[in-house]
């Protein structure tokens, strides 16, 4: 969330209890930063082509957009935002005094198509994350990126690093060639469960996974503001295809997907499930019950409504019928222009410590 502890804003003015940040980002500063973790063949593959970065991130996160990096968090010396542990510590971990944070690297692995190189690049990003971030700050817990077009390779990468103690999650982009609930992906989810990892559905994905059900947008604002459609479609797929009946221990986080579309989604799904459940008989309970048990949502971005209409926000949050679904996240270094203090004001007292720390702590099995 955008609430940052800038200048005169002390942490205690926002929240006095413990904080777990469910989504902070590490950004690979350059392809060469990964070279220590790549075989020579793939280093040469990059340098022969003067390949600098996957095409995906520049599309999802235009480098100079304030959505991509909050201006106050952009280093003025030209370093890439969020590319060093010291920046994350200075901007989030220390001022928020977080107990723990979930570190995600959206590198756009999904926008690399070469099937062998992408495996090497995914492994390199993960090794970079483990060695240059997780190993250096015990507050950090990380997520794996995966070569998302190759379920077998995805499973191999999960098995390779899934037992690393600070790895708590695997990331799947919200846009994909095939919906994640399709059965071809079942081994990926099974592998995540075997290693007790959360599956994190995260903003981004290939440009060929259109962000709306009816095609491509023209502008960044359409993509940014409309991405919830991709999230909703993926969540629907996972619920309807029976992933949670097949894997009763599966946990899914919806990260950077917003959450106030969920009450409307749940109402529609529960309503239609009553009459259409015959075609998906494994879905033996109302879909929102499945959501409450198997899904959590980073509270970013937040559709909080106008400040003078807090009552509407309270009503909307009440529709979730649960205090356990939301997890505070700064989404560092993104800037989403919504404030956690207003979200806190919309929640009942018992839900606030859950939002700020306890839901994520339990969900990710954090110390």
């Amino acid at each position, binding site marked *: 969330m955008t609430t940052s502890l800038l200048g005169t804003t002390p942490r205690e003015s926002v929240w006095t209890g413990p904080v777990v940040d469910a989504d902070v980002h590490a950004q690979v500063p350059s392809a060469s930063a990964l070279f220590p973790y790549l075989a020579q063949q793939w280093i040469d593959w990059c340098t022969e082509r003067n390949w600098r970065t996957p095409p995906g991130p520049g599309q999802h996160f235009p480098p100079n957009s304030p959505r991509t990096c909050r201006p106050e968090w952009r280093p003025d010396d030209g370093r890439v935002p969020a590319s060093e542990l010291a920046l994350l510590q200075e901007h989030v971990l220390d001022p928020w005094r977080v107990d723990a944070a979930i570190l995600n690297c959206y590198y756009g692995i999904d926008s690399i198509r070469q099937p062998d190189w992408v495996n090497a690049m995914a492994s390199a990003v993960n090794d970079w994350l483990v060695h240059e971030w997780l190993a250096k700050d015990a507050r950090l817990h990380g997520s794996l990126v995966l070569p998302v077009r190759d379920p077998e390779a995805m499973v191999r990468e999960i098995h390779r690093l899934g037992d690393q103690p600070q790895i708590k999650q695997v990331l799947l982009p919200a846009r994909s060639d095939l919906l994640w609930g399709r059965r071809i992906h079942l081994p990926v989810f099974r592998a995540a469960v075997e290693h007790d990892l959360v599956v994190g559905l995260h903003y981004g994905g290939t440009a060929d996974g259109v962000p709306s059900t009816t095609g491509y947008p023209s502008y960044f604002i359409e993509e940014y503001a409309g991405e919830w459609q991709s999230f909703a479609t993926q969540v629907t797929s996972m619920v309807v*295809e*029976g992933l949670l*009946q*097949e894997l009763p221990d599966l946990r899914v986080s919806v990260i950077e997907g917003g959450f106030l579309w969920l009450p409307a989604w749940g109402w529609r799904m529960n309503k239609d*499930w*009553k*009459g259409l459940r*015959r075609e998906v*008989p*494994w879905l033996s309970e109302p879909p929102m019950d499945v959501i409450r048990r198997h899904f959590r949502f980073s509270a970013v971005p937040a559709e909080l409504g106008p400040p003078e209409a807090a009552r509407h926000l309270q009503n909307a949050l009440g529709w979730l019928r649960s205090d356990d679904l939301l997890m505070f996240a700064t989404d560092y270094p993104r800037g989403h222009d919504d404030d956690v203090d207003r979200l806190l004001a919309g929640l009942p007292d018992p839900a606030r410590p859950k939002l700020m720390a306890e839901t994520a702590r339990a969900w990710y099995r954090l110390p």
Partner: protein
Amino acid sequence: MPSKRFVVGRAADLADGEKMAVDVNGRSIAIFNVEGEFYGLLNRCPHRGADLCAGRFLPLVSAERPGKYVYDTDHQLLACPWHGWEFDVTTGQSYFDPVGMRGRPYAVDVEKGSLVATEVESGAVSMTPAQYAAATAGQNAGDGKQPGPYKAETVTIEVEDDYLVVDLRPRRPGRRTAS
């Protein structure tokens, strides 16, 4: 509240798997023959009021896991014609929320024509089951002592036939097997 029992037709006219709607004392009651046993439901879906009698019987389908179907053709559920909500006509319970969402069941009894013929003269059987049993105690054998036929509305009562008797008192359905 006095009991209200109404003869609504001949059991033989509603074959196994069939259903019919009858107007009883101003209420439309859907009557179903499920493997020789008769059940009644208020002919009004508790959701939006559709005629349940216009629904289809569909086998119960369930699955423990994706693709592992259990397709139980021996257990038919009635799907409401409007939105497909499934009901067990033997209990009125909906599939998706057996406790919170259910149709209103009525008992449908099968009685010998010899037992109901007298009552049919007035169009209704207005006794409690205990009173009814006492009043008809000597007729249990269906011995044909009562002469027929009798007329009630459009139903002709034949003493040797079985008749369907709807009990309008709200309660869980009793079951009577056609003899």
